[in-house]
């Protein structure tokens, strides 16, 4: 496993230019997650329109992996039906846990993050945004 596989160009691009990103005002965020081990910190806002999640906005302070994962996630789930989001989330987490191989068809751009599975101590960096998303969905669809 080479480090260049971990820090691929697409990941660095998302790290430098996070999508759906911006300052979240007090009370705007649905969740406020912190990875106490590294100090990664993520807030997430979104709402539901019909059967879709929309208006996904993320404020992330983290390492390249975490920030890129959050950005790619936001792009991938915005305006997506909830059912599809849940499927994608489960697939992504399974890949990161090393439980199955990544499929580009299923994950799209997110496959770029599969290499993280080889670095156990960094897995949390990549999965943290998705756990935040799950928490947000729980609040939106109690």
């Amino acid at each position, binding site marked *: 496993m080479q480090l260049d596989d971990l*820090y691929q160009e697409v990941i*660095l691009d998302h790290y430098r230019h996070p999508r759906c990103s911006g300052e979240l005002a007090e009370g705007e965020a649905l969740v406020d997650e912190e990875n106490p081990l590294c100090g990664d910190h993520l807030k997430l806002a979104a709402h539901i329109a019909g059967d879709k999640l929309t208006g996904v906005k993320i404020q992330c302070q983290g*390492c390249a992996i975490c920030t890129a994962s959050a950005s790619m996630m936001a792009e991938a789930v915005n305006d997506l039906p909830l059912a599809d989001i849940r499927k994608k989330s489960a697939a992504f987490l399974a890949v990161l846990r090393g439980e199955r191989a990544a499929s580009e068809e299923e994950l799209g751009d997110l496959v770029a993050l599969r290499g993280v599975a080889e*670095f156990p101590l960094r897995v949390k960096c990549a999965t943290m945004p998705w756990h935040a998303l799950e928490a947000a969905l729980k609040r939106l669809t109690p």
Partner: protein
Amino acid sequence: MSFEPLKLRADFPALGRVFDDGRRLVYLDNAATTQKPRDVLKATRRYYEESAGNVHRAVHRLAAEATGLYEEARQKIAAFIGAPSPKQIVFTHGATEGINLVAHGWARKFLNAGDELLVTEMEHHSNLIPWQQAARAKGATLRLVPVLADGTLDREAFRRLLTPRVKLLAVTHASNVLGTINPIAELIREAHAAGARVLVDGAQSVPHLPLNVAALDADFLVFSGHKMLGPTGIGVLYAKPELLDAMDPLLTGGEMISRVWDDHATWAEPPQKFEAGTPHIAGAIGLGAAVDYLAKLGHDALRQHELALTAYALEKLGAVPDLKIFGRAPERLGVVSFALEGVHPHDVAQFLDRDGLAIRAGHMCAQPLLRRLGVPAVSRASFYLYNDRDDVDRLAAALLAVRKFFHAT
């Protein structure tokens, strides 16, 4: 004596490690845990292979030998820190447990509502949270001495905060983030003058600095074996005899009793009173061997080596563009925390790892301090006796490479 890190390195099996790509390990995470010399491994192995009996319990030779080795380790450690008697050395898990023993057995017993506890903004979580808990349990107030921009304590504020309400000052001798060495003798003197007891967190200092606990007049001192060449799972609480006598034990059970009835029991004398259950015999013996190793090396020689290396590191790292160093105290350890503009500390550590360098990245168990520094995480390189200029050169070169990777593309 001239100090030869390269020769010393040969005493540490792990430092001979060469990674798949042919690079040797450069271990710069010594503030987290240190490597172990062969002498320490030999001492623990000898216990397990020859004298693996329990202590203080049986009359057979294995138990007699084990007890002898265990108590001999206590004596060595007492001598190492200048404790008047080995009876003042309580074996613990580590610094964290030592602090908790005092926060429970002493603070919860003697604090009253309205009393104050004083810590500093540069404490490790282990020397902060136990006092938060004790303060809450007793209706006392916890106050934090501020840290100035250069990484030293705000002595003015310290004096202001040191009112007669303060019953205990719990302060680290040296910061695991900033490297700052606090003027511990003066702090103790001032605290005593104000009527407060002082607990010194020696987790970062005992491994590196000459220290005489009797001369300092510290009331309590804690430290961890694994940060000073010793095994994991062992540490020490030193305290003045009258405090050990007055304190309640936190853990109760076998080995710490005098007599036991159905509904109550009486305690053994210190230090046994605080060592409930079968102790970490091999750990204590290993820590004794670690202390032998350090004593042979000489604390002053070690300090000179680390001072020179740290000065060199500050110079080399100072020359890396976009690198910010946290803490500029004049008196400091070989602990250097930094941030590379635009690159998260975790990513820095990941790239350095590829180059064979082990450093630490994260909040360093000091979230309140990092909040004041205005960063969620830092990277940290920390040196010990086996590090040399070559290690620093590799660190600086690797940092330049990380910067290039992230800034160029």
